[in-house]
């Protein structure tokens, strides 16, 4: 079940340090979001990080084979968790998204992403002999993706649900589904989207309308986007400087510690800082991707690729929200948004990625 402790030394140190850098930037950012105060966010996020570290080491030491074996268990646990969330969940901001576990409010949907990807990896790993994957072989992954999507969407949490769906689709796509199907489904989506519109909750429709024109509601729903754009835009080339972001420190920015944390960063460090951050995340994304080229085990490849993609994708979606490129759908900025579930799930992902990156493929992995 466990690897040798020495294998810890074989982890990808570049990736590890990038992770620390990103987390540290997030810490600095939460510190400045509180107007130069460790309370209430920075210190608590740091505590969480330290509490979660043993989990990271635990995962790092796991044999990939063990993970491979408990894939279904993970998926079932997550589905159960989502069901519990739906029926006994803790309600906040008009949605049932959390269950209380120990002292934490746990957002199970964050872990559904990981479970889904691992499941996909195992599923396609088993199918591996085939050159291409047709529709029939994609049905089970699609159904699983859709059920997770629906379980999360009814909470309601459209943002997370969409991410889950997209991760599922990316996994299927990466695994090699015939190109005709993605193309067909794109056309299909374009055709049914008017119907989907009517299925959306009014507040979701609202968000999209206001995304298209934030000035419709400058003090209400559009306020987030307008204020966020002001904060980012006023950052300019080099930013206002550390702790000099007035928009954020003066509370103009709602949810500045969670969904709009990038605005805090960008106001302080400007275009230069933002590009630097994007570059760091890009490298952080590409390091595991490069590793996938050297791997032949489908299970490893899919997990590495899709989960690494997941972090970068959420990063881009989140930034796009704050700069008005996408509607506000509630996607956290990995390692920078304040929040335990997101932090824990991303740490687990990184642990998994580092674990798999250190795999020597010469060995027989799975029975």
């Amino acid at each position, binding site marked *: 079940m466990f690897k040798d402790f020495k294998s810890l030394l074989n982890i990808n140190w570049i990736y590890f340090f990038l992770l620390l850098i990103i987390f540290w930037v997030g810490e600095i950012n939460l510190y400045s979001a509180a107007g130069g105060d460790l309370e209430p966010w920075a210190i608590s996020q740091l505590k969480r990080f330290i509490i979660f570290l043993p989990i990271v080491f635990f995962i790092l030491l796991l044999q990939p084979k063990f993970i491979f074996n408990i894939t279904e268990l993970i998926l079932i646990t997550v589905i159960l968790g989502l069901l519990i969330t739906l029926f006994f969940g803790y309600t906040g901001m008009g949605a049932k998204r959390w269950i209380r576990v120990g002292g934490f409010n746990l957002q199970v949907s964050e872990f559904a992403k990981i479970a889904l990807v691992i499941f996909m990896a195992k599923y396609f790993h088993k199918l591996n002999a085939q050159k*291409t994957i047709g529709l029939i072989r994609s049905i089970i992954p699609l159904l699983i993706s859709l059920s997770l999507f629906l379980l999360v969407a009814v909470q309601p949490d459209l943002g997370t649900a969409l991410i889950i769906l997209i991760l599922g689709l990316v996994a299927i796509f990466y695994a090699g589904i015939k190109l005709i199907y993605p193309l067909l489904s794109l056309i299909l989506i374009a055709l049914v989207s008017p119907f989907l519109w009517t299925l959306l909750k009014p507040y979701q429709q609202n968000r999209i309308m206001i995304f298209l024109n934030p000035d419709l509601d400058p003090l209400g729903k559009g306020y987030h986007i307008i204020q966020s754009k002001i904060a980012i835009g006023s950052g*300019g080339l080099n930013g206002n400087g550390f702790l000099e972001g007035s928009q954020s420190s*003066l509370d103009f920015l709602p949810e500045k510690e969670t969904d709009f944390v990038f605005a805090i960063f960008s106001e302080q460090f400007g275009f230069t800082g933002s*590009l630097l951050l994007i570059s760091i995340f890009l490298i952080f994304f590409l390091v595991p991707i490069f590793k996938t080229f050297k791997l032949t085990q*489908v299970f490893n490849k899919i997990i590495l690729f899709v989960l690494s993609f997941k972090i970068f994708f959420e990063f*881009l979606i989140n930034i796009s929200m704050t700069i008005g490129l996408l509607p506000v759908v509630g996607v956290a900025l990995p390692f920078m948004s304040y929040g335990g579930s997101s932090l824990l799930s991303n740490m687990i992902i990184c642990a998994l990625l580092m674990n798999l990156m250190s795999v020597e493929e010469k060995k027989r*992995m799975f*029975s």
Partner: protein
Amino acid sequence: MEKNKASQDSIKIFNRRSFIITAISLIFSFIVSIRLFSLQILNFSFYQKKSVENKVSVKATPPIRGDIFDSEKNLVATNASLYEFVLYKNLNKNYLDEVNKLNKLINLDLNIFNISEKLKLFNAYTPFILSRANWEQIVEFEKNKFLFTSIKIIESKKRYYPYKNLSQIIGYMGKSSDVNELYSKGVFHLEKTYEEHLKGKPGKIFNEVNSRGKIIREISIEEPIKGNSLDLTINLKLQNFSQSALPLSNKGSIVVLNRFDGSILSMNSNPTYDSQVFEDRENETIKSLLNNPEKPLLNRAFTGFYPPGSVFKPIPALLGLKKNIISEKTEIICTGSTSLADRNYYCWKKRGHGRVNLKKAIKESCDCYFYELAKKINIDDLSDLATALGLNNIYKIGLSNAQKGLVPNKKWKKSYLDQGWYQGETLITCIGQGFNLTSPLQLASLYSALLNGGKFPSPKLIKDEPIKYLGEELNTTHQKAILSALKAAVQEQSGTAYRLNLNNPNFVKIGGKTGTSQVIRIKEEDREDDIYKTKEIEDRFKDHSVFVGYAPIEDPKYIVSVIIENGGSGSAVAAPIAHKILNFAYQENV
């Protein structure tokens, strides 16, 4: 495990797909970067401006209005902190009990019933002003503060007018019609005219605020700038004295001019009002002021226009001399009436004045002399001379509703009444009746012109205003003739105002002219009908009593112009008042 290893082909697919997804992600990152470039570089200044607007709130502090002083630097308009008891309905359900309690505790004499009626309709969150609070009341209230939850004392900065008697000059403040204007502004008389001069500049407090508008810190303060002060020519002592000299029973007005520089030393009108009620928003009082048929807001010395009566007579006299129609020695016989074109024109003295020369005509105010003179006068010449001597002029002294009055001429009659001029009308005009309309200030200016030899300083209310001369030079001989007649009217026996000397021999010696301004034109039949004299004439149809005089007689400095509406003859009512005022001005050397 080998069979689970990806085939070479499927590895290629993985890599290809990997490439596609990575490429899409890179494109996505690129788009995000472009967007950031647009926000942070291209539109930087726009968002920076927005950011500053967001975080800085500017709170204006009201400007401090300039003070107004009288000629001796007494404050006549300033700013004061006023304290008021106010009620917040929303703070206590039983607010009326509290009002009752307060009323008993502090003896405010509030009409509880009225207040409760008004309060029923009043917005719960706006303070309702119960009463002004003076110092003792504040102390008493503070001692018992725990009894009250809905009543508080608030301080407000207001314009404060210590003297009611200057309201007709200073005017008052009001809400601007411009909704963007935060502060009240002068809307009447000097407060209005000198708005720019007085108003000052509001200060600004720049605060850094958070999204809820809560002030985080003060960034900077721009102190409000006090407006310029204004020094009036009005002498407060004289102003108050004159006001008390006006009989309360009649409407009327008085204006005192300094002949040398045109300074208006006092200007009173009765009835009057208190500017403070506008500042205090005493709506009931304001309403009654506006609707009062006696028009207390009217400054009768400035905007009251009446036929001048006999005080007008020096003008036709000067014209007659100038045009050589008469000389000082020219005499006529006054039989009590004269006729022109089958109409009779009567002298006020039914028995007639007998032989009358210019001096006697003015001194005894013989109408027949002026009728005879008028028969040879061209009305246009008369109108021109009257205009040159200060009548028929708009005086821009800073008061609102400035008007010209009227000395008729042919052109005027043609254009307003579409009628030709009759010489008979010249006769009536020459004794100051008919179409003539002059204000007390204009009459004072006329006498200033007479005393100054034609060129006279334009009347002014503002001390620093440079002297501006109006009028045209008079022939000195003619001027002397008129002045000696005006002196005789008061100083010599049988002068119309000779009684003044007898009544108050110790008063300063003055010259002047009485006048009686007819309110209704007495029809010929009535003139002939003796019943006219005895007929009960309604008060409002009684003649206005007019007097214009000056003192001291040797080198006159003060000119007073008095009109008492429906007061009767000039000699009986207006003249004694004028004498009292001239004496006061002279004694006090205002």
